[in-house]
């Protein structure tokens, strides 16, 4: 019953927000959304504990009774390892982001009912998708998430850019979504779906490429950044883009694994998307667009991990899915704080913000270290698992590519650190205070804590969240260790020595002034050399990779295909127009 409640409460919240749209209060609607998402998380936790205690169970709602003889459209939510994994992290992240949004949205003047109705509808639909056992309802929820994304991107509907961005996102994801419908219909109608597995997988893959922003259908996501930041964090970093990844796992379960061809395709398509994403991210000066391209890049690891087809490969994919939701959500929240503090998303117009926004800087560092795969943070563990799985599955090239992409990711986030947080503080930011952003920072902390906890103690996530999913997929459970040492011991040692270091600093080094702060030796260089802006980075990269950027954007090729189809239809249209004129003349 709690399964149904967890989704139902969010739909109810959405309905209340929609009905009371005239109450133009960000606090009313924001608190309602926070409350409903927290209640949904609570119900899911109850479900999870029940699942741990008693195993799988489901909740059944008979629908469409009049047509049951021909097609089964009952709504069935099932608590199993895979469904609960995706649902739990989605609900958790949404709580943090909804808390953040309460403050963030106070900058707006209107549209709170609309905004929060769609936010709650989105979370409910995402949970519905991940919990649904009936493929038709999975499709319904899958498309509902897209519809919410469309409406939320168009939040500032009076802007031409928002309107265009929403249109592009909806058209690309909805059209590709027909692939999922094809897969679901063929799977349901075939007595033996294995016979048609190529057709099913082809359909599903198209839907996945668009929804989970993989090459070549990722081009809507940079435009989607014209939405309010909580939308970017919740939909375009944490949950919506994971719907495709969930579908791959779902069909892996339904088909009992993928054939060799599809596995190889997924491995290298994922890595290729990842490479493209990070290369485009490198040249971005807009902080949200930069993060959007990193979403493309990071989801590549997940897709590739599924393609590996081994326990460790799928575990790495699951773990990275969880981690990405946390650190990318966190990074977007930081980007939102930067945007509200400096009134710009352009990194070139920022600088030296660490001195004014120290807590935000710490949050950024946690997010950046996690995404870059720095040891001690969650991203490191899942990436390590991926490299190991790729080498074990005899795909060393994928491992090498993964490592190379991770290096470029680090470079990209060093650029952000250097240009936004370090260096010289801009004159107009001298009066900046972090105090107004405390609620937003609290939302960020909710996401930052697990980044560190799962980085130091990954076994918690592996044992309770990932292994149950692997068992469901008929794969052996995994256990992670570095240098034959249990991760719990490594984590404990890390905390012990970090604590020891801090103790030494405060009790001995600082009081005795052993460490002295001096001016940095510049070697006679001019100061601007030490204050590079994002533009300096971008110009350098753009110059070096000019040809690549010119030819690698898939939009130009997609547009050519669309223009070709349009040209054909135009010919028919022109002919019909002529016929219409002939027909209407005698009258």
């Amino acid at each position, binding site marked *: 019953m709690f399964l149904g409640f967890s989704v139902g409460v969010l739909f109810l919240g959405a309905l209340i927000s929609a009905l009371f749209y005239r109450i133009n209060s960000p606090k009313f609607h924001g608190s309602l959304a926070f409350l409903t998402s927290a209640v949904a998380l609570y119900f899911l936790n109850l479900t999870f504990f029940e699942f741990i205690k008693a195993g799988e169970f489901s909740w059944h709602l008979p*629908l*469409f*009774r*009049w*047509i049951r003889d*021909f*097609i089964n459209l009952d709504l069935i939510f099932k608590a199993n390892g895979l469904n609960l994994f995706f649902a739990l992290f989605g609900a958790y992240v949404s709580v943090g982001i909804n808390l953040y949004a309460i403050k963030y949205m106070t900058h707006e003047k209107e549209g709170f009912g609309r905004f929060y109705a769609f936010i709650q509808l989105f979370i409910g639909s995402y949970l519905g998708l991940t919990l649904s056992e009936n493929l*038709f309802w999975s*499709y*319904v*929820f899958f*498309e*509902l998430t897209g*519809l919410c994304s469309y409406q939320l991107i*168009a939040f500032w*509907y*009076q*802007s*031409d850019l*928002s*309107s*265009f961005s*929403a*249109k592009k996102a*909806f*058209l690309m994801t*909805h*059209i590709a979504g*027909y692939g999922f*419908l*094809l897969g679901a*219909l*063929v799977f349901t*109608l075939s007595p033996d779906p294995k016979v048609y597995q190529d*057709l099913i997988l082809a359909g599903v893959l198209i839907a996945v490429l668009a929804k989970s922003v993989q090459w070549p259908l990722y081009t809507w996501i940079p435009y989607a950044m014209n939405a309010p930041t909580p939308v970017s964090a919740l939909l375009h970093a944490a949950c919506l883009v994971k719907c495709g990844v969930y579908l791959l796992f779902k069909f892996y379960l339904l088909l009992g694994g993928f054939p060799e061809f599809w596995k190889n395709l997924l491995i290298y398509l994922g890595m290729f998307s990842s490479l493209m994403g990070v290369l485009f991210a490198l040249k971005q000066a807009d902080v949200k667009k930069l993060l959007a391209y990193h979403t493309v890049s990071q989801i590549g690891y997940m897709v590739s991990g599924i393609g590996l087809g081994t326990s460790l490969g799928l575990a790495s994919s699951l773990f990275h899915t969880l981690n990405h939701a946390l650190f990318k959500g966190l990074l977007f929240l930081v980007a939102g704080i930067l945007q509200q503090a400096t009134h710009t998303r352009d990194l070139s117009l920022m600088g030296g913000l660490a001195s004014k926004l120290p807590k935000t800087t710490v949050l950024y560092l946690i997010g950046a270290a996690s995404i870059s795969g720095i040891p001690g943070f969650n991203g490191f563990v899942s990436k390590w698992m991926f490299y190991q799985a790729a080498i074990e599955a005899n795909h060393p090239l994928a491992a090498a590519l993964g490592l190379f992409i991770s290096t470029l990711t680090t470079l990209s986030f060093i650029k952000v650190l250097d240009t936004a947080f370090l260096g010289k503080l801009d004159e107009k930011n001298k009066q900046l205070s972090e105090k107004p952003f405390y609620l937003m920072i609290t939302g960020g902390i909710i996401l930052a804590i697990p980044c560190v906890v799962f980085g130091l103690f990954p076994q918690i996530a592996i044992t309770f969240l990932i292994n149950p999913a692997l068992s469901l997929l008929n794969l052996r459970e995994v256990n992670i260790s570095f240098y034959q040492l249990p991760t719990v011991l490594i984590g404990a040692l890390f905390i012990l020595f970090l604590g020891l270091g801090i103790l030494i600093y405060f009790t001995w080094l600082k009081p005795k002034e052993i460490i002295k702060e001096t001016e940095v030796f510049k070697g006679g260089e001019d100061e601007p050399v030490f204050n590079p802006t994002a533009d300096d980075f971008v110009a350098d990269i753009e110059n070096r990779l000019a040809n690549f950027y010119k030819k690698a954007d898939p939009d130009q090729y997609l547009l050519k295909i669309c223009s070709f189809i*349009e040209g054909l*239809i*135009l010919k*028919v*249209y022109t002919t*019909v127009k002529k*016929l*219409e004129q002939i*027909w*209407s003349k005698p*009258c």
Partner: protein
Amino acid sequence: MLKALAPFLPVIYMAITLLCGVFYLRDFNKKLMVFLCLVVLTFSNLFLIWGETSYGLFFDGISVIALLTLFWVLGYKEAFKILGVVETSYLVLLILGKTIFAHTPEGIVLLVIAFFLKLAVFPLFLWLPIVVKTIDAVTAGFFICIFEIIDFVLLWRTVEQASCFPQFFESLREFSLYIGIITLLLGAGLALFEKNLKKLLAYATIDDTGYLLIGLSLFSPVSLYGTVILWINHVISKLGLFFIAYRIEKNTSVISLGKAKGLAKDYPGLAFSFLVFALTLIGVPIFPGFWGKLFLYQEVLKLSKALFGLMVLGGCLTLVYFIRAYHSLFLGEKEPETVNPPLPKLDLVLVMLLSFTIVLGCLIIGF
């Protein structure tokens, strides 16, 4: 199934007449004549819906005269001429099919052609956009919706009659299926390039008729369920869209896409209604149109993957033209010179149609 629907169709018909009647009584001249035409039209059409009688031809004739009179009274001379040609051809085919060739496959072919003509099915669709372009949006919505109800009922009955000739019935079904696919693609393709909102809705009607024809030609329980959902959904939503077109035309004097822009700021209710009607016609979950299309997709996929692909292509085109129209009319920066001062935000009529759509969706899921 058609018999089971018999009590509901007159209610829907009456609702359409009442809703349009509100506009006619409020905004149009020659109210008495218009009222009389509507009464006669309703009277004759309800008889046609109710069941097959020996007076069918008589009521068909009365219905044609009443509609043409309505056009004449409202002063739509050009549309009157074109519709006159269409209705005369229709009556001739009907008389031939029901008298000289009665109860023969040839007679059924003549009747099917007559209904295809009225439903604006390929290749007999050219008249519809021309007529719609030259008349007001309320009248366009009214006559399109009543044609869709009456003539689709009559077509359904004719197809049922054809089942007495098994071999002919199979050929007719196959023929209708392909005609349905072509109609769907053609309607959607033409709507894609149409700038005039009323004409776009006319092409969208042709597009939707294609779906109805496909559902009818498959003639399985699931496809017929799907067809009924799409049919009712189409009538309600299309009428709603024509009402919206009427409001825009009346208040901005611009009905061309790309000229009026950013209307959502002044007319949020219209924008919301347009979006809901468009989404249900596109077949976006969880709107009623989705369930109808889902049933059809399932049945078509059982038959042929290629036809399924063509239907999906049609669905994609529908999505593109409706979303393009929505964005170009309602979203983006407002152009102040094209918009008059704001009017009532959401008409009661639109609220009723929106409620119908939602109730239909709930009924489908929970019934």
